[in-house]
């Protein structure tokens, strides 16, 4: 049997996960709906004055994005572990780290990217100044993959456990805190008309770090969970 090369295996895995995800669009929309709902709750709970909303908008957008990606990471590996696909991946000649990175990439395309694309509308609803919107989108585009990778590591650690949900948030949130800080800072700086490129660079650096290290941690965690 011919063994596909690394790039081909990666593409095949991404393609498979995307196809599966498109067949369950309802599940997929959950994190996105959650993102929109949470940002809707704030004007209802506080008062809808534009000044107040504008002041809290960066925080609300970023906390909502963090929580939405937390919610999404729960289901990242569960189905494949339950039906045995993950064991086949672990036994396959391809490195497990690469396959899990592919799964995370597909997961980000289906849950993270929609969040980035919908963020201008959410930002508009919170009266975020126009000039901060492109920066926020860019920062979210860098931050959501980091959150997916962090979520992937922790989901791989907890995938076999019954009480996964609460535990998963306890594991993800402290590690994800720098992403929240840099992201909200980027939006905040852009809002006040200052240069936000520093925060963006830091997010990009974190993304590179996460992309290079976390696949190996994910693979190690998955092998422990599959034992």
């Amino acid at each position, binding site marked *: 049997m011919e063994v596909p090369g690394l790039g081909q295996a990666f593409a095949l895995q991404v393609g498979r996960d995307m196809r599966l995800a498109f067949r369950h669009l309802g599940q997929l929309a959950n994190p996105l709906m959650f993102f929109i709902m949470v940002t809707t709750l704030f004007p209802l709970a506080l008062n809808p004055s534009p000044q107040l909303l504008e002041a809290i908008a960066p925080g609300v957008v970023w906390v909502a994005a963090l929580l939405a990606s937390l919610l999404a990471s729960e289901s990242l590996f569960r189905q494949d572990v339950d039906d045995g696909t993950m064991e086949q991946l672990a036994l396959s000649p391809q490195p497990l780290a690469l396959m899990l990175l592919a799964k995370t990439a597909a997961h980000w395309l289906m849950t993270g990217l929609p969040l980035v694309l919908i963020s201008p509308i959410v930002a508009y609803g919170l009266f975020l100044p126009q000039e901060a919107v492109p920066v926020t989108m860019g920062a979210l585009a860098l931050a959501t993959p980091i959150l997916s990778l962090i979520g992937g*590591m922790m989901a791989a*650690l*907890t995938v076999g*456990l019954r*009480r996964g949900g609460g*535990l998963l948030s*306890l*594991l993800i*949130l*402290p*590690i994800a*805190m*720098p992403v929240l*800080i*840099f992201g909200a*800072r980027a939006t905040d700086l852009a809002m006040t008309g200052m240069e936000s490129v520093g925060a963006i660079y*830091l997010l990009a650096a*974190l993304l590179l770090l996460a992309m290079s*290290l976390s696949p190996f*941690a994910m693979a*190690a*965690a998955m092998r*422990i*969970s599959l*034992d």
Partner: protein
Amino acid sequence: MWKFIHKFGSPPHFYRLSVVLTPWFGWAAAILITAGTLGGLYLAPPDYQQGEGFRIIYVHVPSASMSMFVYVNMALAAAVGLIWRIKLAHAVAAAAAPIGASFTFLALATGSIWAKPMWGTWWVWDARLTSELVLLFLYFGYMALRAAIDDENRADRASALLAIIGLINIPIIKYSVEWWNTLHQPATISKMGKPAMDGDMLTWLLLNIAGFMCFFIAVLLISARAEVIRRARDQKWLKQALGVT
């Protein structure tokens, strides 16, 4: 060298060693902490700015420095256990986590008591306070993951991996919150250059730090011994060592 490591990694040897070493570290801790605390409370001169209120530093700084030290130790022990598959190292890491969490909590609590008269509030969202709080969450995550996994071997390895991930993230978290906000006074003792503290005050602080260190080692030995006993409860050497047949 390897023989020494293997000997050190064997539970019976550790059991005997910990029985011998615990009183030494325990008494050293008692003497050092008594001396450091009494010296700090009665002999050290009051601070020119903060008056008598600064004396809580003799508990606050040692527990804050231990909180990070214990986490690094825990993660290193966990890494040793994960890489060389030494069960004892996992037992040590598991025993260290609650102690480290206690030090972290103590640092937060004393810091909060200190903050009330000095800054006028129990809590501020300052960089160091926040990173200490995140450290507490990291400890809680480690302990929660360990508690959630029934199989001991899996719990050991999964929590070890988590501790290592946390260790890589600690500097990132620290610098991110530092950049975010800072109100805390700069570090009192830094390795480079002259400490920003008078010698009379510093001696007692160093005594207390050494005392806290000995206290940690003593408690870790007791706690790790309990863990070893729990894991080896069916084994022959333990029954012989305890004199039960």
